[in-house]
């Protein structure tokens, strides 16, 4: 197990985000005045009604959304302590490549790239020396772990079922071994067997010291996995 770092990994303070739509002439609320802290190596689950802004928090951390107020302090291994809301685009891209992973239920892969190459390329991105043999070996291990049939490896993921796409997504994100992993309902469309597979990998990542912030509708799935639960309405819930 890696050295457990002192102090928080992520500290969000007073995060507010609304979406102004010029066409409609009004704002849609994302989240408002969210404060939460995640310790290094901890798994925090976010719960709350749909539309309460759970995903907005994750997307703000990942800079896919631009919040209006607050700060998102992140302790980077390479860049030190920085506010992700103020970090440069180049810094965010660096962190996305080496430190912060994001998994959603939507497939986001390059077209005309086989399932196998999708995962290999993801691995190569994070291994700066470009160790192809290692990337291929890890890719095979992960695809086998997720029981993605070998007959699909050389096909384009666009043709995959929802569950297969999702498992591929997760494999591509996890192979980079991020320090901080953002999980936006990664098990939403999976059957129970696949959910167990995802859970096994999350547990393994956690043992490896990965810090995680995740949204799950499936409370059963979170049980025993989450260190703390953050509710959008009530804040942190003990237990």
């Amino acid at each position: 197990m890696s050295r457990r770092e002192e102090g928080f990994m992520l500290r969000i303070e007073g995060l507010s985000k609304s979406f102004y739509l010029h066409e409609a002439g009004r704002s849609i609320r994302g989240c408002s005045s969210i404060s939460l802290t995640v310790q290094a190596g901890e798994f925090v689950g976010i719960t709350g009604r749909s539309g309460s802004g759970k995903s907005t928090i994750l997307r703000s951390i990942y800079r896919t959304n631009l919040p209006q107020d607050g700060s998102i302090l992140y302790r980077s291994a390479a860049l030190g302590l920085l506010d992700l809301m103020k970090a440069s685009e180049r810094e965010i891209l660096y962190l996305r490549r080496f430190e912060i992973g994001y998994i959603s239920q939507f497939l986001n892969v390059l077209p005309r790239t086989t399932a196998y190459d999708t995962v290999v390329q993801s691995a190569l991105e994070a291994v700066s020396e470009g160790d192809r043999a290692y990337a291929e070996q890890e890719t095979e291990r992960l695809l086998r772990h997720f029981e993605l049939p070998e007959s699909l490896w050389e096909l384009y993921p666009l043709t995959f079922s929802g569950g297969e796409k999702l498992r591929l997504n997760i494999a591509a994100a996890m192979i980079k071994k991020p320090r901080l992993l953002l999980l936006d309902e990664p098990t939403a469309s999976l059957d129970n067997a696949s959910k167990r597979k995802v859970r096994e990998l999350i547990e393994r990542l956690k043992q490896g010291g990965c810090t995680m912030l995740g949204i799950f509708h499936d409370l059963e799935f979170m049980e025993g996995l989450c260190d703390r639960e953050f509710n959008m309405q009530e804040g942190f819930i003990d237990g």
Partner: protein
Amino acid sequence: MSASKTTAPVTDTGALQTERPILSIESLSCSFGTGCPFCAKPEHELERNVCPRCGTVHALRDVSLEVYPGEIVGIVGESGSGKSTLMRCVSFDQQASSGAVRTALVDEGASNILACSPQQKRAIRNAFFGMVYQNPWLGLRMDFSSLSNIAEQMIAAGCRNVEQMRARGLSLLEKVNIPLSRATDPPRVFSGGMQQRVQIAKALSNNPPILLLDEVTTGLDLSVQATVLDLVLALRRDLDVSMLVVSHDLGVIRMLAQRSAVMLDGRIIERGLTDQILEDPQHRYTQQLVHSLL
């Protein structure tokens, strides 16, 4: 799994903190017309990009942009927004009214290359820039063979070895999937997609570290578009080429560029990570653009 690979490499950070853009565009402006005291003041409102008093077209207004090594930066915007003028100013095809362009490859970025002599500009363009125009007729000599087109580019950069030019030409045409049996055919007899790929091969002749791609896939059918886009991505991945990619097609930008800028009426109105621009567009025009896509 080996333990040494489990942590993010820390070695790269020094590079990130000291990294410098390979191409910097600083406050570039370009106008067509005489200008007048009214439109000389940036605070005065124009009608889109035209001065209401003197009719001068302000094609570029105070545009600044950086491209870092190995990066693809996208520029989107409607036609007439100044995208191509920006490319043409950078490649010296069009004279800018004011502003500077620097590259780390010339005097380590100390000089404004727009102020160089015509000879120096030609040398810079031949050695460091590869241009691909939307219209292949601008980038190719249509009646010369494809191989001669590539050779011409290499001769301009000082190459005099025929065997070397031939070998380079054949390998480039192979890279862009032109059947070698047609290497000596003039591009005039090629399809649009093939012409575009020959143009890319020509642009690559001297291994330029910077590629300027202006609407390279516009007007091509979807399968050819895909081939060209895959080729562009492979160039970035395998050769670490830095690129400035102009397109009015958000799909193209989404696929190619991690960072993008949105242009309207000669100005950059929004810039950011491409996924952020697509999912959380700020400006009214960008929202319109994104909503037209989805």
